[in-house]
């Protein structure tokens, strides 16, 4: 296996520059910039209401960004949506599988949305499900799965069309500790193995690894961007939890969802 070559001018998996968005009077995102290079795992850390979901909504074109730009593998989401979306995989916070359909049917449907014909879709689905440890259960209904297993299917689905950029919005929401660990570990492994750039949004400090790149979002603004040790230094805190609380905790009370 040759390691993926990464010349300096290769575009980032995700690049956000000067992004602002408001809902009525409320400025949900204020001049946000961040980058997720290919093969990187970046944690988007922020309390509820920080603007993480708005950022995801804009990146997936649920709303149009009013100012600033979002590029996926160099393609502007607004101007070249086809090229941008082709390279994007997303795991949403809310459940988005069809409970009545089987795992395989869910994946085939998703593949068709990316123009992948049925026969190839079946191969890909089998491989993807095996990868997340659910190969045996392809024919079962999604309804029969546990929360953690359903999440793993959603991750398999998000990678089905070989995207370069993977967005995960609170992907461990509602999971028990063991499932959370396994989902997080799985995404980290996939990022390493496939050279995908992943943006992992969470409000849980314990999901941040010591060496992870962190973007700290609060009230729509980027408070910090860098590695863990630099964050500790900035907040003058002994650990990440203390640093997080010091930077955002004092103002948390009454934060709007």
């Amino acid at each position: 296996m040759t390691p993926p070559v990464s010349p300096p001018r290769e575009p980032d998996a995700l690049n956000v520059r000067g992004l602002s968005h408001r809902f009525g009077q409320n400025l949900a995102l204020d001049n946000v910039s961040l980058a997720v290079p290919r093969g990187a795992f970046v944690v988007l850390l922020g309390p509820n209401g920080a603007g993480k979901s708005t950022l995801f909504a804009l990146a997936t074109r649920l709303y149009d960004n009013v100012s600033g730009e979002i590029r996926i593998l160099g393609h502007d989401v607004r101007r070249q949506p086809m090229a941008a979306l082709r390279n994007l995989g997303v795991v949403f916070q809310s459940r988005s599988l069809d409970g009545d359909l089987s795992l395989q049917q869910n994946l085939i449907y998703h593949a068709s949305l990316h123009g992948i014909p049925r026969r190839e879709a079946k191969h890909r689905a089998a491989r993807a499900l095996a990868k997340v440890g659910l190969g045996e259960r392809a024919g079962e209904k999604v309804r029969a799965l546990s929360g953690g297993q359903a999440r793993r299917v959603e991750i398999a689905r998000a990678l089905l069309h070989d995207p370069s950029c993977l967005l995960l919005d609170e992907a461990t929401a509602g999971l028990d500790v063991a499932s959370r660990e396994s989902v997080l570990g799985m995404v980290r492994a996939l990022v390493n193995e496939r050279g995908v750039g992943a943006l992992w949004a969470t409000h849980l400090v314990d999901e941040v690894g010591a060496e992870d790149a962190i973007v700290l979002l609060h009230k729509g603004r980027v408070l910090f961007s860098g590695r863990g040790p630099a964050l500790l230094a900035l907040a003058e805190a002994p650990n990440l939890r203390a640093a997080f609380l010091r930077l955002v905790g004092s103002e948390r009370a009454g934060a709007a969802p």
Partner: protein
Amino acid sequence: MSVEVASPRFGLAGYATCFAGIAWREVLRFLHQRERFLSALVRPLVWLFIFAAGFRQVLGVSIIPPYQTYVLYEVFVTPGLVGMIQLFNAMQTSLSMVYDRETGVMRTLLLSPFPRSFLLISKLAGGVVVSLLQVYVFLLIAYFWEIELPIIGYFTVLPALLLCGLMLGAIALFMSSVIKQLENFAGVMNFVIFPMFFASSALYPLWRIKEANPLLYEICRANPFTHAVELIRFAMYGQLEPVALAVVLACTGVFLTAAIYAYNPSKGMLARRGEAG
């Protein structure tokens, strides 16, 4: 691994795959929801078995095209009930599209790289395919109730059904995107389905209405649903009603454009009234 360049996945075959996938999922989902299938069938059958049987004594229907002889009221009302099936189905499909918009299911669809207008039309068309299943099962049951169409009619009605289904879907999607008050199905029943259904030629011939109330007659003639029903009625007998076809085509075009605009997250009404979590 190399970066993928302009793959054939997004050519014409890709569009076909995408469309087939969306329609296939609609059908699968529908088949899994037995209650929905049942209620979609029971509703027109109640009208046919009970209402029409009682009404037959009250209302004589004279010979009007496309009928060549006196027909029983049940025969007259059948195209109207077929229209009703499509109307309900269109409303259900479109309402779910609007209210699922923020949840993962609809967002997953909108993540597809194909143009949004194509995705929305495919989704509406998927709903139409579901309505076809309902209609043909209904016609089969009606056949044993001695409502027999000419054999050719079962085929010629198909394009009419496709077109009418798409028109009703577009109208429904447009209205539920724009009018915020249509929050639940009860509101839709009161303000959309009932007025469209009753102020049309579904239950009684228009000349009857003209005798009773000229104003209502004009309203009925302006109702797109009337033209959908007439298109279906004539198509059931292998005939084409040009005025109905023209109106249905025009309405499909206008409402489809408006619905796509109203629904499109980046441009439409929803973006302005939207509020993210």
